[in-house]
């Protein structure tokens, strides 16, 4: 089942983030900043640039290899979310037919180059985001965010949301199972049943919030949730940051692919 599968993925990514590699141990702030720099540099390439982007594959490959993230899992995720980008990008080859070169009798147009450029950017940026969460636990990211002065309400919201996703999704799946076992064929799948199920789930959720609030009060909640600080920035982190940001700038300025190709 497709939906239960996406829920499973959530738990799977979470379990990946508790591995203990060099990357996993780095401070979440550094990893977030490196990821953001990576994404911005990749996206800053002009529309019709392709070969220069390829050097950037070094970053996801480095993390996948060192943090032992299964490559197949990342690829599967990429395929699942690709439709919207593909739909928008596929028009480029048909709208822009300026020929660039001929290779073994096939004319390559700028439209195809910008299409491929979008695909490469898509692979790079999305895998960077997935690898950030796969190597940093969600709690770690929240810790990083709150230490980067993101409003506390938002960070607490993220933590509570993440904590209760698993609880409420299981509750929803139980309701779906109950509905399916009482209905035959496609009956019971209508909007009316959905509204009732969602309504009940919502009422239960609101009641749960009341109980959570009482539980929090009885444990001394006073409007803020104190957070444990488990990371700090050491020289290792500073070097990690400097090396990657330096490489990204280098790759952005100099087209390594073209330079190597011209050697021949």
């Amino acid at each position: 089942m497709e939906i239960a599968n996406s829920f499973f993925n959530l738990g799977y990514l979470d379990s990946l983030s508790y591995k203990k590699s060099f990357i996993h141990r780095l401070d979440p702030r550094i990893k977030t900043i490196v990821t953001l720099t990576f994404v911005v540099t990749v996206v800053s390439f002009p529309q019709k640039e392709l070969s220069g982007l390829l050097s950037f594959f070094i970053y996801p490959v480095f993390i996948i290899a060192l943090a032992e993230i299964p490559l197949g899992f990342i690829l599967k995720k990429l395929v699942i979310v690709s439709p919207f980008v593909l739909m928008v990008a596929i028009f480029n080859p048909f709208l822009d037919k300026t020929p660039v070169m001929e290779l073994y009798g096939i004319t390559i147009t700028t439209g195809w180059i910008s299409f491929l450029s979008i695909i490469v950017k898509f692979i790079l940026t999305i895998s960077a985001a997935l690898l950030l969460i796969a190597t940093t636990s969600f709690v770690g990211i929240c810790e990083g965010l709150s230490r980067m002065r993101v409003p506390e309400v938002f960070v607490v919201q993220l933590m509570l949301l993440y904590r209760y996703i698993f609880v409420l999704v299981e509750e929803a799946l139980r309701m779906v199972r109950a509905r399916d076992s009482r209905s035959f064929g496609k009956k019971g799948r209508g909007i009316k049943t959905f509204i009732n199920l969602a309504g009940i789930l919502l009422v239960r959720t609101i009641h749960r919030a009341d109980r959570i609030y009482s539980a929090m009060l009885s444990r001394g909640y006073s409007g803020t949730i104190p957070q444990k600080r488990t990371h700090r920035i050491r020289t290792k982190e500073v070097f990690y940051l400097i090396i990657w940001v330096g490489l990204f700038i280098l790759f952005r300025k100099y087209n390594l692919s073209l330079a190597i190709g011209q050697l021949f």
Partner: protein
Amino acid sequence: MHMADALLSPAVGGVFWAATAATTAYAAKKLRQEENEKLIPLMGVLGAFVFAAQMINFTIPGTGSSGHIGGGMLLAILLGPNAAFIVIASVLTVQALFFADGGLLALGANIWNLGFYPSYIAYPFIYKAIVKDNPTPKKITLASVLSVVAALQLGAFSVVLQTKLSGISELPFKNFLMLMQPIHLAIGIAEGFITAGVVNYIRSIQPEIIEKKTTVSYKKAVIALSIMAVITGGLLSWFASTHPDGLEWSIMNVYGEPELEQKDNPIVNKLQSIQEKTAILPDYSLPEPEATTEEAAEGWPNADPGTSLSGILGGLIVLLVVAAFGMGLRRFSRSGNSQ
């Protein structure tokens, strides 16, 4: 309809990051002033509820395909604009990280498209304006459908605008618009009725959840937000004007022609000749399919076939080296971990 990193330019992504950050800070400040501690756990579980509700699949009448809800407007009705915006932002953050929806640079744009419009436009100006302080099932239904449709239309328009301003896709503005708006009209009507159904259902069993009055002063909020919208709009148009398409597009709308007719002005002519000499892409809104290779070479820096070939060759070599590096590194890290 999540906006994606690969279709954004850094300038457009950055502007929407800034707008979203400012709105988040504003919403957080407002919530702190309300001092309603009870709201914090409620917001958290309602965010989780959005995910859980998406697990309940249903069949869309007439199509047979299955759908799920977005829930932005429902959150605004239950929580009020400020809390709803924060909850939607957190839901989209989790989606960007775990479900790879959109990416990190596009996260700002996505929160804006799916959070700002339902919370700060559709809720105060449409839902509240219709329902006022005495909700009846009919009013709730009308208000929900209209506000969800409006929020989704604005969101879809935003996606088209962001794509166009970024200039990565070649899709003409009008065609893309014609593609996006009708799809989201259909989605909006369906989600509007579902939202209305859920709100009415809850009202029938626990009316106090829906009927509590929000204490937010809308006048102030509206003034602050319109000022912000003007600033954002100004910033956007400034970025847009550095991009040929955005400007030409707006001129096209005003004058019905892509470029203004040039009057004979010596300074303009001079500047134009300089621009034509220095521009890499003199006017790339007119790509000619039958252009010869020599002419086309102007359209792409260093694009004579020789260097393009080295680009391909070099690119392949870089990819091979990267792959070999990865495999070596993995072997190395495995042997290190097993010790």
